[in-house]
């Protein structure tokens, strides 16, 4: 096992390409250290990216924000402008673990760990975020929903890693929200998560909507039928009821130690309805 | 000489099925040790349990290892399982 802390992206990519066996990126380390301790993972190379310039920065870009891969949850939460523009994303990131975990865990780590239950992912999908992948030959930007292929598996090729996530500029009258269900009030993995982002016209009618569910399938889902129900409508009871039904139907969860199929399907509907209402209120301002 | 009065000893817990359903014995004994010795003689099936697997309640007070505690025929005497706490 080797520990490296390169100071440029180029050096980092070079290390990843040359590495034999398994390589792992160290940003916050809150998943990596647990996996290593459990014996699930014995990487040959651990590459700490925190010394690479920009990795710990939040930079305004095109009216939105670029969030470096090593920005911790609490650093993101303390950023007033991001919190104001995308409260749904920030509240999702802030739900990841305890205060202690927040001090380390990163949004990009949450994305690249490719857990179906990752809290930040449905929120990022809902706001249409993109991830920047750096590698040997090219740098590419992809929608966040394409990063995870299956639990623990990503589209990243050898030599590649995600260097940042871009949150686009929010249109006027846009609101985002994320809710999750856990049995306790803190310190749990989401049993169901739901991210909603809505844009309204001046009359309060939904003109743009994205709805994403977490922990109810092998990876976070973008539920387009749910968005369709909202488009052209205000959020009256009937619309919300249909939204909840569609979210419940879209969920294809499993029974496991954290919840049952029936429970997850029902709560997916409940949370989507509640998140939509919060997003709606935020959009109205 | 007045007739010697006997102790009335009641059983609880797993002793009941061990003793074939008997729940009460009339026994001699000046203290817990003697009483248990007589009980083991009267009911050999109970003998293996009477070492340190029982507690004895005397007038509502539970004794775990008090073989020399005196007994008299007016005492309420109940054999219970030996208990452990957390």
């Amino acid at each position, binding site marked *: 096992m080797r520990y490296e802390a390169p100071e440029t992206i180029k050096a980092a990519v070079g290390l990843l390409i040359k590495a034999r066996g398994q390589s792992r990126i160290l940003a916050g380390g809150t998943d990596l250290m647990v996996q290593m301790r459990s014996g699930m993972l014995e990487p040959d190379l651990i590459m700490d990216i925190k010394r690479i310039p920009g990795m710990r920065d939040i930079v305004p870009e095109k009216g939105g924000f670029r969030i470096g891969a090593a920005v911790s949850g609490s650093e993101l939460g303390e950023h007033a402008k991001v919190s104001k523009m995308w409260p749904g994303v920030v509240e999702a990131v802030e739900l990841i673990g305890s205060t202690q975990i927040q001090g380390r865990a990163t949004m990009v780590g949450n994305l690249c760990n490719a857990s179906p239950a990752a809290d930040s992912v449905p929120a990022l999908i809902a706001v249409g975020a993109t991830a920047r992948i750096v590698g040997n030959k090219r740098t590419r930007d992809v929608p966040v929903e394409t990063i995870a292929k299956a639990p623990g598996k990503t589209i990243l090729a050898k030599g590649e890693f995600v260097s940042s996530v871009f949150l686009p500029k929010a249109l006027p009258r846009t609101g985002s929200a994320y809710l999750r269900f856990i*049995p*306790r009030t803190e310190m749990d993995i989401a049993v169901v998560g739901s991210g909603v982002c809505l844009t309204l016209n001046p009359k309060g009618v939904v003109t743009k909507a994205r709805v994403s569910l977490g922990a109810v399938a092998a990876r976070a889902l973008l539920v387009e039928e749910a968005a369709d129900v909202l488009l052209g409508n205000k959020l009256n009871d009937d619309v919300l009821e249909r939204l909840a039904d569609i979210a419940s139907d879209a969920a294809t969860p499993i029974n496991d130690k954290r919840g049952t199929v029936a429970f997850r399907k029902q709560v997916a509907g*409940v949370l989507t309805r509640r998140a939509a209402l919060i997003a709606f209120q935020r959009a109205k301002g | 000489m007045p007739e010697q009065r006997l102790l009335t000893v009641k059983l609880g817990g797993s002793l009941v099925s061990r003793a074939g359903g008997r729940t009460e014995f009339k026994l001699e004994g000046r203290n817990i040790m003697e009483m248990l010795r007589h009980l083991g003689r009267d009911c050999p099936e109970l003998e293996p349990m009477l070492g340190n697997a029982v507690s004895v309640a005397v007038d*509502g007070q*539970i004794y*775990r290892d008090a073989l020399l505690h005196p007994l008299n025929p007016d005492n309420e005497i109940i054999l219970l399982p030996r208990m452990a706490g*957390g």
Partner: protein
Amino acid sequence: MPLDAKTSNDKKAFKSVGTSPIRPDGIDKVTGRARFGADMSAPGMLVGRILRSPHAHAKIKSIDTSKAEALPGVKAVITSADLPKYKDADEDILINIMARDRALYDGHTVAAVAAIDAAVAKKALKLIKVDYEIMPHVTDVDLAMLPNAPLVHPGRYDGMAENEHLALALQEQGKAKSKRKSTNIVSRYDFGHGDVKKGFKQADVIVEHEFTTEATHQGYIEPHACLANVSSDGSGELWVCTQGHFMVRDVCAALLGMDVSSLRVTPSEIGGGFGGKTTVFIEPVALALSRKAGRPVKVVMSREEVFRATGPTASSSIKVRLGAKKDGRFVAAEAVLKYQGGAFPGSPVEMGAMTAFACYDLANVKIVGYDVVTNRPKQAAYRAPGAPMSAFAVEGCVGELAEKLGMDPIELRKKNAAVEGTKSSYGPTFGPIGLVETLDAAKKHKNYKAKLGKNQGRGVASGFWFNFGGNTCVNINLNVDGTLALAVGTPDIGGSRASMCLMAAEELGIPYDDVRAIVADTSSLGYNDVTDGSRVTFASGLATINAARDCAAKLCKRAAQIWDIPADAVKWENGAAHPAGANAGDFPPLSIKELAGQAHSTGGPIAGHYEVNADGAGPSFATHVVDVEVDPETGATKVLRYLVVQDAGKAVHRAYVEGQFQGGAVQGIGWVLNEEYIYGEDGRLQNAGFLDYRIPVCSDVPMIDTVIVEVPNPGHPYGVRGVGETSIVPPLAAVANAVSAAIGVRATTLPMSPPRILEALKSKSA
């Protein structure tokens, strides 16, 4: 033992007792200086690691340790071959700490290594090859009792009286008589009196339910840890976090074939126990490794090992039937309890059975309990072992009876409450007890009058625990400056050293700060039973008081010698020796400091001591009141307010008594709402970590309100009753009753996790 003059509830009678000073070990614990199990090191120390079975039940055909032994840096590898059975060893404990021919549960120890560091030890474990033959397993108590269940110990119970239990049990379950000679039922317990058949005939209302509870873990934050050092002459030292170092010494010596006197055990500070540290797990293994390697060996469990291989409590399946007259008077009560306690006999079902109806004065009561073995880790005691589950079932039925009769739940309990002179459901007649006092105080409390909103419900439950005494030894040494060194032999798990200092100070009439208490090692003090059964403040307290009196008597004698008057003409008062009366002579009092200062030149050091097998621990009753709110769309339960009312006899250190009340209540909240052992089809534990074994976190609970009731225990000089365990008896039922009230369905399955609550709500609307 007669109640001393001081046993009044008049606080003025006490100077120190009943206050809440800072504990003697406090500064070390807030600065990080206190040394717990894993905090000790020794020169040349090796790291011990344990290999555990990944199977719930498997024959161990062979173990090949040769590759591990050949790895550089490995100093010892042991298997069951290194732990033969010695004469006095308890075979169940021996097999539990190291599997022999079969692995009996997921996590069962099969081998252990000692190596120069953790990395080498980890590697060595991987090099040990175990050839397993997987066998059928059973982890559920009801399934384990079925006639065709896989047997945990085939043949072991053949020909024993317990075998008849199967036939009995199956008949009671309405199933055919089995021909099998062996079963997983290892004991049957019967309690009760009167005629329940006749009783139920008189009943106007009968409630009947079947309840289940899952196994929960004590969840102490400090994993088991020890440092063993066996020298070449066969003598050994052990540093260990345990609730009973004398027990550790005796059991380890027996398992390893050592003389008791050649093993010295020093207790570390202990990071929680709750019953789970009243037995041995890694200690004999560490000693055996050290003996083989000839070097000190430290073994520290991981959290995963704690969950998989140490004792959770039993899971249970309980049926209760309760009948009452229209006016609320109970006429008959019946319960059948089935507890599985893992792979060895000893589930706490007998205590579950004894405590089930202990709160009530019943003319007709019958309780049957079955102890069942399964392929799970051997259960260990957990705070009032066995009692919370049976209270959950019984108090659930009492709650429903109150609803059916339209009675206030506290009034219904008062109407049937056990009082002094009641023949208890488990046999003995109660002395002075304080159940009614807790009910009255609960009813008067503001929480009982708080208004409830939508989706909210209130639950009430009472609970009982016996409390124990036991073997106890205490020394008090008078130092040259008049301060006292107090040595007790019961590990301090919740601040008991402070209570001991208070009682010694009270007795000698000196300031609390002049007494310093330590927990002495096994070679420095006579035998002490483990810290269990809520016994320490009672029994070590009683011994401390008597040791202090012994010390005072010696001080009086010394003063008498100095004054040249008879010893019985001197009395001890307010920290000084005084002439007992005018006839004794006119001498100015001699303070403890003056006597201590000249002790060495007036006859030698002064010390008091006391050894006793303490009897007379008075039982403690409690009543809890809780309000909850349930989200009907997600099944999430929020605890809004919580009240604990409990009889402490006499609260020695009030803040720590409250702390026991609060801690027990919150553990109970965890048990009822979220905590459970989850086994897969493969018999493996799926949630061996704090992420998915969900103990309550700080944001899950409200402040826990407390009322200390004091009905003196005549068995203690100050009236003290143990308080540690009763507090976990009522919460399961109290919260369940509150949830049932909030959702309108009787909750009978624990934990009442959100999926279960949504299911219950669905069944109601269907």
